[in-house]
């Protein structure tokens, strides 16, 4: 059994205009030490997925259905008290913007020690020693000095190192990293990502990496999910998806990468933009932007606008697309009738 | 008030707006606006509504003094809410008093807004030394508390000009005093939103197009600062009415011959120990209802418009 199993996760926001479904039918697993990427444009529900794993969605959002099972415990029905023992202890998080994540009025040492003390019976002195050790592991310059400093005295890169150190404090099983490098200077993004990857490998920590950067995902993760408008549309081993994407959206994302373009030509981009979750198109939510709605023969595929696509398997991957399903069906029929 | 402008296109825009939508759904806001409008109409129509003219000494009989309101034994049919210590009909004098209070409240806020918006625009738009001087001035005045400034100015003016003169021009005096005491609130709010607007591209665009800074300020920046101005105006009217009442209560406001709600409360306070509580508490209740309805409207407006207000 996998370390973390998410099945049929359904998250909604009760807004004045009515309920908005931020996540539907999200299912995936994570093994011990495995690294999983969650990819999508902003608004696809990546961050909601990350926060709902630890039930940290705040009002008006709530988990409406599904199960999140971690090491035998169903997290989404766990009491707040028991859940607290998981948060920061066995599953820790790294937030997007290091400038906003640390509390401005508490010293770095205080914010590290409190986390250790919340989960272990430990003296302040011992906690400081552990904190210092972790600060060394994240290769921060002069770590002794940092414990008594305040966040505003440190640069963004240093703060994110500290947040990684806090994530590692209690030797967790899983780290959930929500766009951990997006807010940083481009020059230090790669450095921080390499550090995170290195530490996860060293300590055999599972990583759920949420990002919109396919390049990072392909370098860091073993498996990936592609999300669109609150649904998973393609999932499988990272290498397979990157090399041979099936879903038109995934193909579009990959084609839009600058590395894929021919110098001197315009970048390929997916036309249109992500729909608002409150007003999703019927059928496949991607259909208004999809180039494959019309069959090669010229007749439109009506299922795209009428029916939400289910998953079909291609190799180790699973894809939610009517076009792919039809192709597979055709191939199967051809094989059966030689 | 700026929402009820005359052009029909504005009306249509108002009807489609979120403000109107939320107003239709908010019972408290509707009730408050109804009460407020009733009070305003009743106050300004007081010469038509009031059964007696409390300024006319011939209509007053001192023998009718301290009569209780109708639900208490010993009440007189002619005076529904009873009479005050001078024998004036309490209902009439409250109507006239509310008019005085509202007049001073609106007048003072108009003056505050005029000074504050001008200074705030100058400070925010011109920046540099003008900004430093104006804001330091505002800081000093605010650190002194506006009521304190009003009391001191009132006291000094009264001492300089003499009581009789001060009483004669009390309405204008109070508008000036309260108006001058509270301008920093507007100035700081306007300055804050000007600074926020100034960073935006359309202001740069206007400048690149060669528009003069005064034109940019009034035609481009000011309209975008209107919603915070509008929101603090409601609170400021409530504050001005309370300030006026406080000054009158201290004897630095409206004379008893021409009372506002505050001076009615002051006059009645002397009789509370003798059991005639209505002379002070009924005008007090009217004052609270008036201020409360304005404050609740202000609260609702702030929720709806949600402007960036200057804190502190």
């Amino acid at each position, binding site marked *: 059994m996998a370390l973390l199993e998410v099945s049929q996760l359904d998250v909604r926001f009760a807004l004045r205009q009515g309920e908005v479904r931020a996540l539907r039918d999200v299912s995936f697993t994570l093994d011990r030490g495995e690294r999983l990427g969650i990819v999508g444009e902003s608004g696809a529900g990546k961050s909601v997925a990350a926060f709902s794993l630890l039930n940290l969605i705040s009002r008006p959002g709530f988990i409406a259905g599904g199960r999140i099972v971690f090491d035998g415990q169903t997290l989404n029905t766990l009491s*707040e008290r028991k859940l607290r023992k*998981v948060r920061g202890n066995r599953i820790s998080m790294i937030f997007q913007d290091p400038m906003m994540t640390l*509390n401005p009025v*508490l010293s770095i040492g205080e914010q590290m020690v409190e986390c250790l003390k919340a989960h272990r019976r430990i003296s302040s002195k011992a906690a400081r020693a552990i904190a210092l050790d972790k600060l060394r592991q994240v290769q921060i310059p002069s770590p002794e000095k940092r414990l008594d400093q305040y966040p505003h005295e440190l640069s963004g890169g240093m703060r994110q190192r500290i947040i990684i150190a806090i994530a590692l404090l209690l030797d967790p099983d899983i780290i959930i990293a929500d766009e951990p490098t997006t807010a940083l200077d481009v020059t230090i993004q790669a450095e921080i990502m390499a550090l995170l990857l290195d530490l996860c490998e060293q300590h055999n920590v599972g990583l759920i990496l949420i990002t919109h950067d396919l390049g990072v995902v392909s370098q860091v993760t073993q498996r990936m999910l592609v999300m669109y408008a609150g649904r998973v549309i393609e999932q499988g081993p990272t290498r397979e998806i990157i090399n041979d994407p099936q879903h038109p959206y995934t193909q579009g994302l990959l084609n839009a990468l600058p590395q894929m373009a021919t110098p001197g030509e315009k970048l390929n981009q997916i036309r249109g933009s992500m729909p608002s979750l409150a007003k999703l198109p019927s059928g496949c939510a991607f259909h208004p932007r999809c180039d494959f709605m019309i069959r090669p023969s010229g007749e439109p595929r009506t299922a795209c606008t009428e029916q939400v696509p289910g998953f079909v398997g291609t190799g180790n991957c699973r894809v939610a697309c009517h076009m792919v399903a039809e192709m597979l069906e055709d191939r199967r029929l051809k094989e059966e009738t030689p | 008030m700026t929402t009820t402008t005359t052009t029909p296109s504005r009306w249509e825009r108002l009807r489609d707006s979120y403000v109107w939508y939320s107003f239709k759904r908010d019972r408290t806001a509707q009730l408050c606006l109804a009460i407020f409008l009733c009070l305003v109409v009743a106050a300004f129509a007081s010469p038509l509504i009031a059964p007696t003219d409390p300024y006319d000494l011939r209509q007053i009989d001192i023998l009718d003094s301290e009569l209780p309101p109708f639900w208490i034994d010993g009440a007189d049919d002619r005076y529904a809410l009873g009479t005050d210590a001078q024998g004036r009909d309490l209902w009439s004098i409250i109507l006239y008093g509310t008019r005085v209070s509202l007049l001073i409240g609106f007048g003072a806020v108009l003056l505050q807004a005029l000074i504050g918006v001008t200074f705030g625009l100058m400070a925010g738009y011109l920046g540099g030394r003008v900004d430093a001087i104006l804001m330091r001035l505002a800081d*000093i005045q605010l*650190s002194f*508390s506006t009521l304190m400034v009003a009391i001191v100015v009132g006291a000094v003016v009264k001492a300089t000009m003499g009581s009789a003169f001060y009483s004669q021009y009390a309405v204008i005096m109070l508008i000036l005093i309260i108006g001058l005491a509270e301008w920093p609130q507007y100035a700081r709010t306007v300055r804050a939103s000007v600074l926020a607007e100034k960073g935006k591209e359309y202001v740069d665009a206007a400048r690149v197009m060669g528009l003069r800074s005064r034109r940019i300020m009034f035609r481009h920046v000011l309209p975008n600062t209107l919603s915070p101005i509008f929101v603090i105006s409601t609170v400021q009217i409530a504050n001005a009415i309370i300030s006026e009442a406080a000054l009158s209560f*201290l004897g630095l406001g409206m004379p008893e011959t021409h009372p506002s709600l505050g001076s009615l409360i002051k006059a009645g306070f002397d009789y509370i120990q003798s059991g005639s509580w209505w002379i002070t508490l009924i005008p*007090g209740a009217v004052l609270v209802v008036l201020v409360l309805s304005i404050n*609740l409207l202000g609260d609702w407006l702030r929720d709806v418009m949600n402007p960036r207000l200057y804190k502190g």
Partner: protein
Amino acid sequence: MIAFLIKRLMHAVLVMFVISLLAFAIQDNLGDPVAQMVGQSVPESERQALRERLGLTDPFLVQYARFAKNAVQGDFGNSYFYGEPALEVIGRHLPATLELVFAATLIIVLFSVPIGVYSAIKPRSLISRFFMSASIIGISIPVFLTAIVLIQIFSIGITVSIFPDSTGWGSWLNGLLSTSGSMPSFGRGYDLVHVFGSWDTNLATLSGLQHLVLPAVSLASIMLPLFVRLIRAEMMEVMQSEYVKYARAKGISMRRVYFVHALKNTMLPVITVGGVQIGTMVAYTILTETVFQWPGMGLMFLDAINRADIPLIVSYLMIVGVIFVVTNTVVDLIYGLVNPTVKLTGKPA
């Protein structure tokens, strides 16, 4: 720290300079010491000579310099009414006002923080809604009116007879809603305990405290709802912040999230506003002391205005200016101690 203090000191000097100019202008325009010194019968030529001898015909700046020099030495002249140094008169009235402000501040701090925090944490609960409604009503009632209502209820007493007395429950309800009115509402009482100098305290005896209750509650009545609303609004904003979310993600207890992570950040703007409001509170002492005939500086000031006692008015203004400047400086220092981003140089942007 030194630079910070120097900056504050410069500000304080500037404020005091403005106040002293104002005070001097009042004295210069209103106070005619000659008229106070001599009778009506003294001819104008003699008056003029006296004016010259007193230096009243000197240029404005020379006169101001003399005024400032005396003021620094604590000499504001004699009160016309009391016939003794104005500063001594103020010294006699100061303790009563300070005790009143102290008691009101205590009420405000003790109630506003728990109520504000509670209604921010549980904004939908019935109790929070009650507090929010109560606070907006509280803000809408002027201090002197609260004082009058308190006097009517607790000092004079109210007799309710709206329910028929003949039935048992009627008279019970009438009794429940009626009050006997035994609280003192006039002055400080006679059970004062001498501390030192001109300081007699209300805080040492039960009767003294009883005299303090109604004035202190009245004085607190407008600030308390203001602070409840301020603390609630700030706390709710802080609760939305990333660092509070992150603190929860670390698995620390909610109590620690609320009272260490959120409250400390909430208090920063509250402290700043608090500094300004102390000034407002001094203004409100004038109203409260008038209603309760509390023999403090506020009542003294109002009497001085009515008696045109210029030296007393001027010295009151100067002393209040000093109180404002001192409290603002102290508040800034506290702010600097709580907020680590304030370093030696001053406030952050």
